[in-house]
């Protein structure tokens, strides 16, 4: 394995931006106790991890996963089950959620990762929607909605957990993306047949990228459930699949820095516009911002900044 993580450079503008973003999130906690601000930055951290998880699979390998809500929701439900039925502590529940999301991801990925292009988009898009429909049905049958009260008032714990997972995923994914492993992932994106001809076991590496993505999406799903105090079918909703994609597109796909920038801009603009008159127009403003960036900077913000480099 060691040859795979050779060649990583840490003195790059990308890595400095990642460190600065993590520092910003830590600084928020030190500087303010305002529950609104902390709440918004918790959401930024949650979506940041989702966007990063999307980028490490889809940005690098080109397999566009439109169903990130599946590991997110699976993680959330597993953590809810573990903490209410088994009585595990929050940290153990979060780790278990990540592992469980990998496990469910194996089932989803073993079949769907053979598909390409629109077919992969379609299957990944449908899986969380079908799961949500089933859980809605189960909800009516036996009221299987989980109240998880252990951490709902402990915003500091939730925030720390979200920021820790964000920092871990950002640094790990940076190392993945800018090492030989990242080159292998990109070779799958550029030409999968050629990569196989060069002796790369693409099925193995696709599953590795998929599992990395699912692990962190599952853990942050658990954190989200703990912060909400409830696990419900809406955790599998379309927005948890779609928003991370847009955050990556906004910031720049396949760059690892892009998703962080995109999340801060998009989630920040959605939440900090909760001011008197523009309150009701904030989602419209955020979606217009997204459309304009996609129209005029198709490679995203980081892609535009780095347009001189290859």
């Amino acid at each position, binding site marked *: 394995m060691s040859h795979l993580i050779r060649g990583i450079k840490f003195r790059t503008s990308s890595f400095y931006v990642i460190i600065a973003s993590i520092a910003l999130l830590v600084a928020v906690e030190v500087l303010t106790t305002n529950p609104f601000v902390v709440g918004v930055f918790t959401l930024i951290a949650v979506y940041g991890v989702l966007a990063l998880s999307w980028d490490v699979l889809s940005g690098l390998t080109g397999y*566009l996963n439109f169903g990130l809500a599946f590991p997110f929701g699976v993680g959330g439900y597993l953590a809810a089950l573990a903490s209410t039925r088994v009585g595990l502590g929050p940290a153990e529940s979060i780790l278990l959620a990540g592992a469980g999301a990998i496990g469910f991801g194996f089932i989803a990925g073993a079949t769907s990762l053979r598909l390409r292009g*629109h077919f992969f988009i379609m299957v990944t898009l449908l899986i969380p929607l079908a799961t949500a429909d089933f859980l809605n049905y189960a909800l009516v049958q036996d009221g299987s909605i989980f109240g998880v009260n252990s951490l709902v008032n402990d915003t500091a714990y939730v925030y720390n957990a979200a920021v820790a997972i964000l920092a871990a995923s950002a640094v790990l994914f940076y190392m993945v993306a800018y090492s030989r492993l990242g080159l292998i992932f990109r070779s799958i994106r550029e030409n999968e047949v050629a990569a196989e001809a060069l002796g790369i076991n693409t099925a193995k590496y696709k599953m590795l990228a998929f599992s990395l993505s699912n692990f962190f999406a599952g853990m942050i799903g658990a954190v989200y459930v703990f912060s909400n105090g409830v696990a419900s079918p809406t955790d599998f909703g379309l927005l948890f699949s779609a928003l991370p994609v847009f955050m990556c597109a906004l910031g720049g796909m396949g760059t690892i820095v892009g998703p962080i920038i995109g999340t801060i801009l998009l989630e920040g603009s959605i939440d900090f516009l909760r001011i008197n008159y523009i309150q009701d127009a904030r989602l419209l403003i955020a979606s217009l911002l997204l459309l304009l960036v996609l129209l005029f900077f198709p490679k995203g913000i980081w892609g535009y900044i780095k347009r001189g480099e290859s």
Partner: protein
Amino acid sequence: MLTSILSFLVLGTVLGVVYVLFSEGFSLLYGVAGVLNGAYGALYMVVDYAVFLFFFYLKLGAVASILLSLAFVAAVAFLAQKYVASRGRSPLEALFITLAFAFVLQYSVQFLQCSSAFPESCQYPAFVPVFITGSTSILGVSVFNQYVIADLVSVVVLVSVWLLLSRTRTGKGIRAVSQDHMAASLVGINPERAILITSLLAAVMAGTSSVFLASYQTVDPTIGWSVLTLAFAIVVIGGLGSLVGTVVASFILAFIRTYILLFVNPLLADFVSLALLIVVLLIRPQGIFGREVS
């Protein structure tokens, strides 16, 4: 027993025709423009709100409201294709741009429907009254007249689109573009014009299916997403670009849905359709009538 089989067949057909209409629109647009249009579902949603505005608020007649709504959505689709979707330089970029545009439409409607800027017009959820009252008995199964009219209009629209594509010069141009973009432009067909005409046709097809169903569903700015998912799934299952496959897939899905609604459990209808779609995609990704996946 016989009655339940008959009601299954009649209601399945009634639903199937509407499915055919909106998925053929999506399929046509995909075939000609070569990109998946993420704003298709949003157009479906915009029509419902246009009808709500013309019919319920402005109290125009049923026919006038329907025609005005279709004209409105055609204009939106035209502008969206000309100034937004065409700017995507790759299919992926175009998909993202149209999805973002769909969000813009959704949140614009949400803002106009109910916000602090227009507190007096706040009506949520929107409700469109039935245009055509009464019901007809078909083979002993009672069907709302509005559904019967919806099916008749759908068939008329489908046949006219088919005639347009197969008999007229413009239609042949559109088919040429869908077969080979480059070759079509070499023989003097303007692909941009063909795509614009197709987006008008697709908008009218989505609009027609939507306008008659508006009275039977809760109109909500997010309804477009389930329509987009369904149209996408039907088109993929039928085989991308295969018009016959799209028809077959529409009816299969409509019959399965009707079966579950009537005989199993209405709450499971969405889940079973989606689960079946996933299974078909995994077993036979090229669809029922599609060629091998490249």
